[in-house]
């Protein structure tokens, strides 16, 4: 029987994502892909997958996965206060994220909370999902990627390549230390001016640069609406433009003056002027932070943005180079006392 990871409960919005589907924007197909590329890469490295392997990206708690037929190793990367439970209904053990967890055949992991962030990434050792137009990333609008072109639903069986997963599950569980920059706790969104920066009045530009904005509850993989002071257009003619390219990070200002920052699943073109574009290194923050989180914009120049992008690559490499075996296992001390502390540490490390 083929090994699978069963989706017992799908949670709110859990999708399969990889680094994205590139080269098709000219046909109106967005990249999709992991909202936080750093977490995607680190999670895959923890379980020994290729960096570009697909992962499960999920929002809020609720997802429950069960290993069928064989032991399966997962890695969960996200906010430190997220809570995971493994075992079965009678005896759950609680774990922090940013580590691997090895499920024995029949065991489940239940993501009870994503903690102070909105989403979390789960890599699965040996995950084996076909690509669709060059990527496994789910883009439900065009029925692309994932298992069936849509988000995960209860009862789905995620195929695991057996040899791969079984071999890796014998090694000790690993943990990672995410540096501050890869935890995306900052409230500052650095951005590059344009393409329609000149469509805004000086009062509008001042509001944009000097105000506190707040992530609203209208946030999904397409984009995030922000609440805060109105960003005034230069005049009424400046409120609409002849549609041009949108990229993830585009800060659209519709007639209401309230910014919408576009994310990975956004349309490839649109008719609202864009005052600036959030740099790719800061964009994950908007996929991760919860409604109500404050943020401020800061304009930087292109060369600074490129340098930051390079630093993020270095930080990801360093993080991957400093994985350590898990020492502390569970979160709950009471359960901890009833559990063999040596398990998972000595085993094959």
């Amino acid at each position, binding site marked *: 029987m083929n090994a699978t990871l069963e989706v017992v409960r799908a949670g709110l919005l859990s999708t399969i994502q990889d680094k994205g589907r590139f080269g098709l924007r000219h046909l109106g197909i967005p990249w999709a892909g992991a909202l936080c590329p750093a977490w995607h890469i680190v999670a895959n490295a923890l379980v020994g997958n290729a960096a570009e392997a697909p992962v499960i990206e999920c929002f809020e708690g609720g997802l429950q996965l069960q290993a069928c037929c064989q032991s399966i190793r997962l890695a969960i990367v996200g906010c430190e206060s997220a809570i995971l439970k493994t075992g079965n209904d009678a005896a759950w053990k609680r774990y922090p994220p940013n580590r691997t967890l090895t499920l024995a055949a029949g065991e489940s992991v239940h993501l009870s909370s994503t903690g102070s962030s909105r989403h979390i990434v789960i890599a699965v050792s040996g995950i084996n999902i076909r690509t669709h137009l060059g990527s496994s990333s789910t883009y439900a609008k*065009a029925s692309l990627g994932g298992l069936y072109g849509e988000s995960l639903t209860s009862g789905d069986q995620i195929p695991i390549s057996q040899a791969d997963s079984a071999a890796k599950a014998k090694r000790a569980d690993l943990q990672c230390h995410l540096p501050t920059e890869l935890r995306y706790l900052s409230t500052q969104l650095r951005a590059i001016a344009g393409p329609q920066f000149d469509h805004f009045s000086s009062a509008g*530009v001042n509001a944009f640069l000097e105000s506190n904005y707040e992530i609203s509850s209208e946030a999904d993989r397409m984009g995030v609406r922000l609440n805060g002071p109105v960003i005034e257009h230069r005049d009424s003619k400046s409120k609409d433009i*002849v549609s041009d*390219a949108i990229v993830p990070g585009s800060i659209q200002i519709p007639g209401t003056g309230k910014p919408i920052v576009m994310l990975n699943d956004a349309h490839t073109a649109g008719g609202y002027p864009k005052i600036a574009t959030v740099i790719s290194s800061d964009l994950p923050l908007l996929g991760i932070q919860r409604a109500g989180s404050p943020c401020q914009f800061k304009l930087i120049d292109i060369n600074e943005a*490129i340098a930051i992008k390079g630093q993020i690559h270095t930080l990801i490499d360093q993080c991957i180079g400093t994985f350590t075996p898990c020492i502390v296992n569970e979160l709950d001390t009471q359960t901890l006392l009833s559990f063999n502390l040596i398990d998972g540490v000595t085993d094959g490390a």
Partner: protein
Amino acid sequence: MSTKIEQVAGASDDWIALYAGDTTLVVQFGETIEHSIVKKVTILNTRIQTAITSDNVHGILETVPGFRSLAIVYDPHILPPDELLNLLRRIDSPDNKSSKEAFEPRHWNLPVLYGSGHGPDLQSVAQLTGLESNDVIELHSGCTFTVYMLGFLPGYAFLGDTPEELYLPRRSEPRLRVPAGSVAIAMQLTGIYPWESPGGWHIIGNCPIPMFNADLSPPALLRSGDKVRFTQIGKDQFDALADEPDATGPDRTHWLTSDP
């Protein structure tokens, strides 16, 4: 403010280059929808594709043609923005005639059932333009459209120009559900909906040929720069095409025509 706000990365006689973040440069030829501007976008796009394939240029990840601009997605660590701008100036120079003619548009002849249940706005378009329904159909199927760009939805093609007699602003009440295949007009543009979606354009007919098939490569039937003519078909032919497995299968070439 300490940051110098500089949004124009570079310019030529014909365009200005604008940053859209740290990995995209937008080369803008104008701010209106005009056939002549779309043509410039198409030529630059073709020249860039030629540079990638024959001049071995690295670092350009993809290009996205729009009505009045070409977005170039690049890796700034392989191709820094000033080198990209130099490349653009070089390939855009008047001396570079080689690739100007390299773009060969495909010519499509697509069947459309106008009016009845499939074109619910044909009557109102006729009323609003002071024409008879038959005149609307004759005008719309009597001209050759150019695919100006794809966007809005995967595979959604914006075609222009619709004959001037049919120019109408968008409907004041957008529909929540526009059926897949709908052929719709607004101002100088005609669109074909690849998917059921909300939409505010006037639906005058339906084309039974799928605009998007994720199992084919490329998945979209049309691409920027293609030429399209519409041919009126009757209900029987429409039903036959809509039911015919071949119409949804890989043989799209059936709808190509060698006669521009």
